[in-house]
């Protein structure tokens, strides 16, 4: 039974995800720091919700989303219809990022810390757009076979240049967004697309060219988040200048 396989596999992977982090955190809290945990009951309840949620989320992905998503990724990983492949990469990059739990966590924290000045929804949109553009460029790269490092290093250079103009508050958050975009949902679908595309394109080594797509999804969100912040800053500056006249 495939169902049983999924249920056990996901339980194992959630356990592996949660147990070490929780053990280390609790060990330091109680044994090393000897600090008490305020609201311990509420926190215990919260952890149950977290683990159950993560588990249901992954089972749901495995039975509902991944089979169809991976079949699609395979279908669109043919170099003959490059337009469709790029459109698919763009859409799937945007859509999976909007539902990525780790990104939700970080942007929610940012909204909380900035007392609502940074909107979680807008930040996530900027990040998702970055992943979408990044994956499209990454797919294009696989079809042309240009070296990966040129694109990635150019991407970092653009991000660093934008850092110069961006408000200081947004910079760490923008850098963080590169690391959080690709986890639970995005990686399996993107890996299927990248490996499939590299296998179906003559002259590409799936082992060399299949990797690297995730890197695009990490670099481009930095650019879009910084770009968004810079353009907002510029707009506000011009408006203020207009008011003074």
């Amino acid at each position, binding site marked *: 039974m495939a169902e049983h396989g999924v249920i056990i596999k996901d339980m194992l992977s959630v356990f*592996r*995800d949660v147990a070490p*982090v*929780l053990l*280390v*955190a609790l060990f*330091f*809290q109680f044994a090393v*720091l000897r*600090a008490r*945990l305020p609201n311990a009951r*509420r926190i*215990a309840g919260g*952890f*149950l*919700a*977290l683990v*159950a*949620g*993560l588990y*249901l*989320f992954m089972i*749901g*992905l495995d039975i*509902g*989303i991944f089979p*169809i*998503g991976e079949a*699609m990724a395979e279908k*669109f990983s043919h170099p003959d219809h490059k337009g*469709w492949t790029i459109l698919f990469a763009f*859409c*799937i990059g945007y*859509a999976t990022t*909007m*539902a990525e739990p*780790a990104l939700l*966590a*970080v942007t*929610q*924290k940012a909204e909380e*810390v*900035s007392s609502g000045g940074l909107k979680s929804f807008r930040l996530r949109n900027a990040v998702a757009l970055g992943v979408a553009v990044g994956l499209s460029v990454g797919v294009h790269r696989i079809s042309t076979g240009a070296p*990966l490092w040129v694109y*990635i290093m150019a991407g970092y*250079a653009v991000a660093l240049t934008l850092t110069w103009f961006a408000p200081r*508050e947004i*910079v760490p*958050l923008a*850098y*963080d967004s590169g*690391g*959080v975009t690709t986890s639970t*949902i995005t990686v399996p679908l993107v890996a299927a697309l990248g490996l499939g595309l590299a296998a179906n394109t003559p002259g590409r080594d799936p*082992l060399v060219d*299949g990797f*690297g797509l*995730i*890197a695009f999804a*990490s670099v481009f969100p930095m650019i879009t988040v910084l770009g968004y912040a810079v353009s907002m800053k510029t707009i506000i500056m011009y408006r203020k200048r207009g008011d003074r006249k």
Partner: protein
Amino acid sequence: MKYFFQLFFRSVMDVTPLLAVIFFFQFVVIGESFPNTPRMLAGIALVITGLFLFMRGLEMALFPLGESLAYSFAKKGDIKLLLAFAVAIGYTATMAEPALIVVAEKAEKITGGGLQAFTLRNTVAGGVAIGIALGCIRIILGHPIHYYFIGGYVVVMALTSMAPTRIIGLAYDIGGVTTSTVTVPLVTALGVGLASSISGRNPLIDGFGLVAFAAMTPMVTVMIYGIVVM
């Protein structure tokens, strides 16, 4: 009660783009119906419920735990202890990361055993541990994050020119794979908590950025490993 509905509705909205994309490509572009609709609908219901519960748990448990740790470390004022925690959490969480296990095994196959999966995982975990520790030091010192980033960028560039071609894609990807759905919120709460409990630090400017460190340093350690072995 109203809050619960709002939160649930938000989870539905978070998943909607994904459903829209899948429906569009399946019906409009491919022009077929789904092979197993009831199964898919059940999966979607589980995804939404799961996301809702996860977000509740985040607010109730993971964020408070991370903040509580940060305050306790700040109160104690022992930097060595904080760094020990950063290393421990970075290392153990990464060693257990399911996505990394898959990638490491693939990498061992690619290189025909030139890279050992277990050593590779250790290399990445060591990278993440160093990254989070370095990020904590930055929060304490209050340095602007982009100095570290420019430094990291230069190191990555230099290593790229020396590293074997086959390992470059892997090394670049690995930064994105290492940080899991549980580690990210805890580490974020830790950073923000630290920045709020040290006077003169701004939680937005100084508190965020730990995840970025955890994504950057593994690239460096993996490429060094590749250069040494191959």
